[in-house]
């Protein structure tokens, strides 16, 4: 059984290394004021916000819905490429001009939505940094030990999640997430339509044809199950079924046990 974990996908060591790197970067920032001395924490607002925004842009990309070519995965160590809404290997160039137009429109819309998302990342990062500095107050000294740095880190995580939560619960953000998903899905459907055109040209069955066959098969299964239920529900039919010769008996020419069934 394939899974993103067991195959070339998620690697906990890679995720850990990425998180550790980000942690070290934060420790460096926390240590910027001279250790042990009362610090002017407000000077950290801009670098903290900048780092966080960069991380949000890189890790959240266009939200969980879309991982276009070159877009980093949502979580470090999680392989991109297995996404439903990613572009097919067949680019817009493979389609007819009029068909490609719709794809280009969708790609443009996606870029525009990603731009809107970036505004939110910026807002979240700025709020998180300001909140962090405000919570530290003016009297706090720069950390002198790992334990003190860790306390700062935990505070930073709380501030970051609070700022993130405040924005992502808002209606406009939720609407944007849905629009991103819908545009990504529309792009995928459009690209598959192009692929179908090519498939048809080679005389291969298309998705629609396979789906139609599946629908027929499903309907036949349903009818068979209904028939089976009715047969089981009817005692007369049940006893007749019992009396019918088995396949093996029919093959060997022997009669099955029980009374002979009427023809």
């Amino acid at each position: 059984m394939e899974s993103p974990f067991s195959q070339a996908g998620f690697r906990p060591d890679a995720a850990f290394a990425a998180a550790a790197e980000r942690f070290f970067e934060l420790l460096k920032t926390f240590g910027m004021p001279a250790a042990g001395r009362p610090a002017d924490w407000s000077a950290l607002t801009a670098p903290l916000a900048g780092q966080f925004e960069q991380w949000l842009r890189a890790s959240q990309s266009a939200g969980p819905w879309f991982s276009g070519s070159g877009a980093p995965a949502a979580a470090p160590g999680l392989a991109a490429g297995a996404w439903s809404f990613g572009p097919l290997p067949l680019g817009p160039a493979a389609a007819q001009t009029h068909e490609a137009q719709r794809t280009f429109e969708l790609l443009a819309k996606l870029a525009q939505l990603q731009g809107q998302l970036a505004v939110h990342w910026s807002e979240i990062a700025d709020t998180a940094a300001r909140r962090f500095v405000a919570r530290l107050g003016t009297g706090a000294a720069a950390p002198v030990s790992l334990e003190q740095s860790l306390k700062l880190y935990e505070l930073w995580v709380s501030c970051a999640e609070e700022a993130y939560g405040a924005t992502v619960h808002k209606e406009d953000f939720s609407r944007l997430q849905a629009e991103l998903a819908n545009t990504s899905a529309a792009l995928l459907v459009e690209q598959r339509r192009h692929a179908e055109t090519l498939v048809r040209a080679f005389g291969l069955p298309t998705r629609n044809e396979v789906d139609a066959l599946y629908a027929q098969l499903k309907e036949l299964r349903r009818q068979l199950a209904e028939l089976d239920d009715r047969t089981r529900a009817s005692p007369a039919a049940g006893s007749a079924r019992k009396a019918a010769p088995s396949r093996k008996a029919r093959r060997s020419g022997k009669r099955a046990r029980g009374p002979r069934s009427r023809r």
Partner: protein
Amino acid sequence: MKPPGPQPGVDFAQLNLRMAQILVRLRQAREVTVGCSHKHAVWRCGKTTLYRYVPLATARKARKRSDARPLLICFALVNRPYVLDLQPDRSLIRRLLEADLPVYLIDWGDADEADRHVDLEEYIEQHLGGCVRHILASHGIESLNLLGVCQGGVLSLCYSALHPQHVANLVTLTTPVDFHTPDNLLSKWVRGLDTALIEASGNVPGELLNALFLALMPVRLTQQKYVRLLTGSPDERAIEDFVRMEKWIFDSPPQAGAALAQFVRWFYQENRLVRGGLKIGGRPVRLADIRQPLLNLYALEDHIVPSAASAVLGEHVGSGDYSACAIATGHIGMYVSRAARTEIPARISTWLKAHR
């Protein structure tokens, strides 16, 4: 990666050493096994497999033959059920077996392109219903106990409302009922999804759902938990436990497009369990039709299924014997935390024994 240079106040040399040690251990632990209790496949339908767990030797010795009603566990479609039997000391299933309960588990398997049109009716009536009918026939009984977990709890509620004669007692664990509580971030995000487009896109890969769940709290779920490894000096065993959980978290199966689209539309968008109007296979599903004894367990710090989303179940069911219990943990904590090892299985088995 670039290790940090010397900084005043923080012993980075020690931190770098720790990081290197943990990296090695994480790499060594990548092949950890999951799932510890013996089970046999007893029935199949499409990609769905019904497993029966082998009773434990200790339970067998205590009683020659269990006369308890079989318990069928219906897990979510969006995650793998082995989290309920991750390892011997973190296994809800093992604790239930120790309580001498005959345990069955539904594994929905991996939907492939042939399953893109499998809908909720098929999952509930044919797959879940087929499992129930198989167990009833095997045991020669008319009803069983049903334990629905998370999304599987929603499917179990639907099944119990449609086929009350087959379900003697119902237990729900971290099951969303009211999908429109104000703290339900997932619900807010998917409210505007075009479900027809989702369905037209085919199956939805598990990786996408993983990313969606992680995006609910990205700093805690993709950063802080790893940093805590770095600062906590975990031993080899703790690292293995951690990797087992990681393996489960990132091992979500692909979702049949039709079923997922219906789930999003009917439950997340239209909140039909609470507002009404839900139909499965043309038959109305009403929570008021659930009159069996019902035990509802939910987590107080659940970021996926907020406690308020579960807690309302008692207000909507018709059961005159409804008990609820809120556990002080998170969503995943309900499956693997200390409470999951002790309190939750004890509550379930005690309640089921009182409802024979």
